[in-house]
């Protein structure tokens, strides 16, 4: 199928590039779509590496004794697992990946506000990732992804810890650059006629995310620099032997790292708000409430960090303040969940992979949210802090939440990104395996934590062995579940059915151009036909015609 490219409005577009060539994905490209895909593919590779590390952890925990790997190396393995999954998979995938690919397309822009800065942000994550990986040759950091001093200062893996700090500084810088870029892009590059309240909810989510990134990440950078000084040149910022205070580090660390959770999940909330309406054929329920709740989560999210420190010896009044703030986060999060459920209610649910993963997201994230409310209560937290209950909680949020949402987004936008459809049967297999594996792995961990199993241990009380075996089996199912996805994605990318411009009959702007879009996104100017979520019988006929016309005028005729 050859495409004859005839720009309908060749107003000054003399030599507009019409096609993205494969090798451009390996260059310092400034095209937001290429950068988006670079982020997604790179981070997915790191997801697989992090997954291998997780499997090693679960294999070790299949028995109560420390008998598979050296206990010191075990600590390195879960440290690297956490670091990779957070900083090299979820954060870059949801902000750098989906954010870059979608934000300009959704607001009718040709690119991000600062394309070169965007490319620099991506190319910072490559050395960061390689550095972190290189530490496997000389002993990786082993003090947990939290790197609490004095353990991280007194560590045997001196070099590994230093490299760890350096790569966190690099990905942090990358994050800040991307955050600035998104904020400016969303604020000033919306197409004529699109005000804040008619832009897609994903853009609202990215705006809230970027504010968090810009306000919180520099504090982490500060903490990392000071920790590095303590580690390398013997200062005593956090080292109690020299009069330093390890609890100060915890404040600085969590001032970033709690908001980081929202950085990892707010864009995914946005993805869900985009995926549900076209696949359930109904408008999003409560647009303004969802938009405002993103901003509320952003604001509240900056004042809850010390709930990670309820057992750290913080003053009581502080614990009370952070308990109330934390519990309040449940309100805007609840608004989102209820609004999504109401969106589904009465729709015509097309139960294909994107919607299955989106509904899977709601059902599992809900559990993580509810256990989050339990943890928000200071006395409850004191018992389960640093136990497998917490491990269960944040995997329900970050796996059941973020990863399910990422998959929903991948199935939804794969046709747009590659111009090919994914295989639906293998998509369903992937969903079923992921869903079962997820609950089998992380569900029983709630019980482990409540019963008395601490986290980050290589050996544990034999009474917990049966439940740990279940978790390990679940983890292996999860590992296997990625195989159908990888094969499906790689095969479909090259040989899948060709995707039309708008396979889901969706209404957001990215579906008004070809699949994949041309380098400058639209031939001629994009046309705003309807609100992003004007689904439903009443609107259908009028919009359908206008949409067809818009697609015809703004992408190459076939």
């Amino acid at each position, binding site marked *: 199928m050859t495409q004859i490219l005839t720009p309908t409005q060749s107003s000054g577009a003399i030599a507009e590039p019409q096609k993205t060539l494969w090798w451009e994905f390996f260059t310092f490209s400034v095209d937001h779509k290429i950068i988006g895909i670079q982020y997604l593919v790179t981070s997915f590779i790191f997801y697989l590496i992090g997954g291998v590390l997780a499997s090693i952890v679960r294999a070790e925990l299949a028995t109560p004794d420390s008998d598979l790997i050296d206990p010191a190396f075990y600590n390195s393995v879960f440290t690297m697992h956490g670091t990779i999954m957070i900083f090299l998979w979820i954060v870059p995938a949801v902000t750098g990946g989906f954010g870059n690919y979608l934000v300009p397309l959704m607001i009718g822009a040709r690119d991000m506000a600062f394309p070169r800065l965007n490319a620099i942000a991506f190319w910072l994550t490559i050395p960061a990732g390689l550095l972190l990986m290189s530490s496997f040759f000389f002993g990786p950091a082993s003090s947990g992804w939290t790197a609490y001093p004095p353990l991280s200062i007194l560590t045997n893996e001196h070099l590994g810890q230093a490299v760890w700090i350096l790569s966190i500084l690099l990905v942090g810088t990358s994050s800040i650059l991307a955050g600035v870029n998104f904020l400016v892009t969303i604020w000033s590059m919306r197409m004529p006629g699109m005000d804040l309240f008619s832009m897609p909810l994903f853009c609202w989510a990215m705006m809230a995310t970027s504010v968090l990134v810009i306000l919180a990440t520099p504090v982490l950078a500060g903490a990392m620099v000071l920790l590095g000084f303590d580690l390398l040149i013997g200062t005593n910022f956090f080292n109690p032997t020299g009069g330093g205070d390890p609890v100060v580090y915890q404040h600085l660390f969590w001032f970033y790292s709690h908001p980081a959770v929202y950085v990892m999940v707010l864009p995914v909330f946005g993805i869900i708000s985009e995926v549900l309406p076209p696949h359930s054929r109904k408008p999003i329920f*409560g647009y303004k409430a969802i938009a405002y709740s993103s901003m509320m989560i952003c604001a509240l999210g900056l004042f809850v960090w010390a709930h990670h420190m309820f*057992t750290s010896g913080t003053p009581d009044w*502080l614990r009370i303040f952070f308990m109330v703030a934390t519990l309040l986060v449940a309100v805007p999060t*609840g608004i989102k969940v209820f609004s999504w459920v109401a969106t*589904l209610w009465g729709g015509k649910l097309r139960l294909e992979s994107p919607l299955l993963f989106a*509904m899977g997201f709601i059902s599992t994230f809900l559990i993580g949210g*509810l*256990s989050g409310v339990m943890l928000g209560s200071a006395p409850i937290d004191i018992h389960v802090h*640093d136990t497998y209950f917490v491990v269960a909680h944040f995997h329900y949020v970050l796996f059941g939440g973020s990863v399910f949402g990422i998959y929903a987004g991948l199935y939804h936008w794969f046709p747009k990104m590659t111009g090919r459809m994914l295989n639906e049967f293998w998509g369903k297999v992937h969903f079923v395996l992921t869903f079962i594996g997820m609950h089998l792995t992380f569900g029983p961990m709630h019980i482990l934590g409540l019963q008395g199993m601490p986290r980050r241990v290589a050996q544990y009380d034999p009474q917990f062995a049966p439940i740990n075996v279940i978790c390990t089996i679940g983890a292996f199912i999860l590992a296997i579940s990625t195989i159908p996805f990888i094969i499906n994605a790689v095969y479909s990318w090259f040989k899948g059915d060709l995707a039309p411009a708008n396979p889901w009959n969706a209404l957001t702007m990215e579906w008004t151009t070809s699949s994949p879009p041309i380098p400058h996104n639209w031939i001629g100017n994009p046309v705003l036909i309807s609100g992003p979520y004007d*689904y439903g019988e009443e609107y259908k006929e009028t919009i359908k015609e206008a949409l067809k016309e818009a697609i015809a005028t703004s992408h190459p005729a076939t």
Partner: protein
Amino acid sequence: MKKNNLISIIVIIGLIIAASIWYGRNNHLLPVAAGDEALLYDGLFNTILAIAFGFFLVVEGVLIYSIVKFRHRKGDDTDGPAIHENLKLEIAWTAIPTVIVMWVAIYSFDVYTAMQGTQDMSGMAHGGMHQTVAQAENKTGNKKSGMPIANATLASANSEGVLMAGTLPAGMGDVVNIDVSAMQFAWIFNYPNEIATAELHVPVGKKIRLNMTAVDVLHAFWVPQLRIKQDVIPGRSTYLEFTPRVVGEYPVVCAELCGAYHGGMRTTMVIDTPEDYSTWLKEQQEVASNDPEAIVASRSTSQMSEQEYLAGKLAQIGDDHHMMHMSH
């Protein structure tokens, strides 16, 4: 038709509430409650769990119902109804969770204050809630302090787990003070008269206060059956207070990553009857006066676990604060 809908909604809500309450009372997720504080904890935990379970049933129920009822039928290419919002519904699902989480916050605060016992709350002196709770504590405390009733008896009378106005504060003389020292990868418990042990013994029914410091890195003292945990921090002292109520042996677990053998940093807490406790103390006293360096000599070396052996070794150098870095 409309009336039928209303009735079925009421019936469903009733069933969900009943199921939630049942689950809150019968979840068996927590281990035995061996301290007075644990009873308060369990009451709070079961209440919040019941609320969470209710929300869980509602949302998952709607999701499953939607999959069945609203799934796309073959040949139907129409859209759903164009419903954009419903202000009343949205106000309801904003207001109801707000009220619930604020209630949870107040309840948690109450339990927190009660569990903390005599912990210094001066920073919250203006909080009305705190003052009332504290006053109630004082009143009961004054009234009962002269009465020879063991705290454990009072506490078990309240085994429903209903919120009570704190455990009875024992007179200062009644508090058993134990100094705890944490190090990679062992706990040392120091009793008065130079007694140092690797196993924690406490008498049932008395208020226990652990004064804790760490030698090297962060640790955390946790007894799951007491539902309390506190980080142990080098360079500062932290403390925990609790009142044991069920005689038995319980694990002491380090809950803060402290190095390669963090998982092995475990020991036992024994809640003794007052008689057993004084016998045990006497034994330890003799051991200590015979050999001041002995830590676990109450058992023969062959019975000692690697853990205890390590603890004994470490204790000899434990006071030496230059030993900041144990390498393995």
